[in-house]
């Protein structure tokens, strides 16, 4: 897949959204179009991994653990820096959301409407950054860049990673995204607990 295709399709989607049409909200029996496309993608990636007969090795696990730690350490440092820059402690849980915008926004909305909106957009932008910039990565940076995708590397950004970095890296990305997804609620909650007066 060419980089210009990603940008062109994203811009087309943005134009559709500006017309007031949110394609993700189109649904059937409680499931949205986004759910169907996501599940189809995950199924195809599973099919691909099964076809390759890849096995989770020591290296996959070691790289995944390092990337999970990097995602949270980097997000925490970023959150603390934003706390100083924007003069609000809410920047910390927002940054720790690691791309999981639906959960982080819903949780932060409860304490601040403004910061709930920021949590939604900031984490959505993180997903977009990964989607739009991942095709530009090369060599060793392809594994390190998985950290940008955060929780989304187990679903929405996984296909981009699979297409540009191959099956081995997509396996690492899935493990990373899955564990990050499990840890985000715990860490966001802990951060909110710490900053609450």
């Amino acid at each position, binding site marked *: 897949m060419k980089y210009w295709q*990603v940008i062109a399709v*994203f*811009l*087309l*989607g*943005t134009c*559709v*959204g*500006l017309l007031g*049409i*949110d394609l*993700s909200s189109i649904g059937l029996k409680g499931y949205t179009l986004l759910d169907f*496309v*996501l*599940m189809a*993608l*995950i199924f*195809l*990636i*599973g*099919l*691909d*991994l*099964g*076809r390759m007969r890849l096995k989770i090795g020591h*290296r996959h696990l*070691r*790289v995944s653990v390092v990337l999970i730690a990097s*995602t949270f*350490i*980097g*997000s925490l440092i*970023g*959150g603390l820096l*934003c706390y100083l820059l924007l003069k609000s402690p809410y*920047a910390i849980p927002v*940054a720790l959301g690691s791309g999981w915008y639906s959960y982080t926004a819903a949780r932060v909305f409860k304490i601040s409407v403004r910061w709930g*909106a*920021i949590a*939604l*957009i*900031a984490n*959505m*932008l*993180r997903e977009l950054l990964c989607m739009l910039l991942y095709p530009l990565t*090369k*060599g*060793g940076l392809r*594994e390190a860049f998985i*950290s*940008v995708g955060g929780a989304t590397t*187990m*679903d*929405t950004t996984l*296909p*981009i990673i699979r*297409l540009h*970095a191959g099956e081995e890296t997509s396996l690492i990305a899935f493990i990373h995204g*899955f564990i990050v997804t*499990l840890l985000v609620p715990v860490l966001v909650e802990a951060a909110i607990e710490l900053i609450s007066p």
Partner: protein
Amino acid sequence: MNYSVLILMTLLLGYLLGRVVKVEKKIIERSIMVTTLLLILIIGSKFSASGAIAEGGAILRDSIIISFIASSFSVIVAILLLRIFGLGGDRT
């Protein structure tokens, strides 16, 4: 059903089917490409329909600052840790 469990089950179903049924690599890659582009189209529409662009001003600025700084530090830490643990390199 929990979202993470549903995703894991779908991946597992595809994985098991992939081990049993022989499917052409090209067919899978083409299908992944088409569905990925569809996904990007949906996310693009979701992004602008959420009001993020129309919102303008302070909220968008703060969001860009947080996402950019958090992402940058995540990559920097990842590069450093992968090198420290000898897991980096030019494997592609």
